[in-house]
């Protein structure tokens, strides 16, 4: 049949017709493929590939494995922001994917700072993921031994969002001993200690910190010690 058509008509005409068919299919695919995804309140994003498969694919490129997961976090977050009318189960599923991508990224590169910032920034407002976000920050804090910010943020989240002051205290205390920790970290730890353990321990902690911290902080710490001592005397 094709050869008969070919013999009867000009070759370029047949080529043009085939081109038109191709173009139509391409246009239909563009229109329908995209329109269908956005038209309802469902999402078609799938979860992260299993960690072991990701590790096998990444091979020695550990850093790039972490980076790829962070890019996926952005993709999933963009989907959440683009479809504000998502069904509730879909929304929860996407937040779970964000958490999983962050966790995988941390397995590849536990020192990567972006993971910690994203864990606190994105997951802290999601009630179901707050505890897991603190877990991610704890892992990040264990790896990044030079960084005071991660354990401090984790401690603050544990206090403010989870109401777990024991965990919060251990994390903020850890943050206080890290290099470059500002005075706010020390005063927050002292406040938690005062509330949960007692004024005496809080004063001891501040005295220990005074010895460790640069002289710049001395006046501030002294003022806090004095205030606590006054409070202690009044309470007797």
């Amino acid at each position, binding site marked *: 049949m094709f050869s008969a058509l070919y013999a009867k008509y000009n070759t370029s005409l047949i080529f043009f017709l085939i081109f038109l068919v191709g173009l139509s299919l391409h246009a239909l695919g563009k229109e329908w493929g995209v329109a269908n995804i956005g038209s309802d309140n469902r999402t078609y994003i799938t979860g992260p590939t299993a*960690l*072991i498969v990701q*590790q*096998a*694919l*990444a*091979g*020695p*490129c*550990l*850093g*790039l494995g*972490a*980076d790829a997961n*962070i*890019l996926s976090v*952005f993709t999933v977050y963009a989907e959440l922001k683009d479809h504000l009318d998502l069904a509730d189960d879909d929304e929860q599923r996407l937040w779970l994917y964000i958490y999983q991508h962050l966790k995988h990224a941390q*397995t590849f*590169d536990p*020192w*990567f*700072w*972006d993971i910690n*910032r*994203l864990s606190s920034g994105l997951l802290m407002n999601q009630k179901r993921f707050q505890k897991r976000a603190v877990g991610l920050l704890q892992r990040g804090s264990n790896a990044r031994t030079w960084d005071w910010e991660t354990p401090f943020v984790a401690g603050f989240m544990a206090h403010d969002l989870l109401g777990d002051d024991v965990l919060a205290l251990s994390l903020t205390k850890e943050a206080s001993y890290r290099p470059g920790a500002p005075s706010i970290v020390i005063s927050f730890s002292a406040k938690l200690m005062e509330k949960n353990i007692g004024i005496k321990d809080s004063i001891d902690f501040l005295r220990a910190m005074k010895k460790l911290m640069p002289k710049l902080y001395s006046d501030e710490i002294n003022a806090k010690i004095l205030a606590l001592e006054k409070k202690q005397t009044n309470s007797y």
Partner: protein
Amino acid sequence: MKSILEIARFTIIETLGYRVTRVIILFVVFLPVFAFLFSKLFMLEVSKVQIDVMAAGAYLMGIVFILSTVVTLLGNDLGSKVCYFFLTPPIRRQDYLLGRFFGLVVVVTLLYIVLLIGVEGLVWYSLEYEDPFYRHGISWITGVMVAWTAWYQTLSLLSVIFMICTWASGVAEMLVFSSSAAFIYWVFPAILSAIQAKNDIDSIVSDKLANIIEMLAWLLPDMTGGSLVLAFEHGIAVDYQVVFMHAAGHLGYTIIMMLLAFLIFMRRDL
């Protein structure tokens, strides 16, 4: 010795003349540009992301060079009997193999020097223009570690490919076995370190299988230079003994594989 050097010189000229080698050099030259643009997708540690891309490029470059250039070269030599041109007295078989190997080592080294210049260019930019906030831990040694670890790991793979090509019968067979070896090299150490790190796969892999995998790992070199690079990217203090012994392990593996290649090639029916 003179014949070895002569074959090595010929190999360098021949390999650099391949179009695929030039494409690889072009890839390495443009890789820093891609790494720079890619890093702008991230928020904080952008310099670390640049080094990640360069490290991945370094590993990929080694494998692509070996599979495309080295296998073709040895396939032509041994499969299509081009090696007859070389193997005339006084050139012995071991001279030929050693000459080819040293020639390819020089070309691989040249490729990694080009890559090193690119990485150090990015490091220089980071140190000069990026805020320390965005480049924690990055130093000149980071760039050196990227090229250095990828270089000696590629040489290990090169020696394995030599060993395979000495017994494989033609280009097709060489390509299949070499690709399989490269695949195993890429995938296996990652899975192994995941098992050793007692990761989430505990439930998937049984103890017996884990033991078998660990035994098989002895047959492969330690292709975990990626974790060394990662540590240097973040300014983690790595014991220089670890860095040295990692490279020494690869040197040992390269020597063993080349010895095997000699033994097989001496007895090969050409």
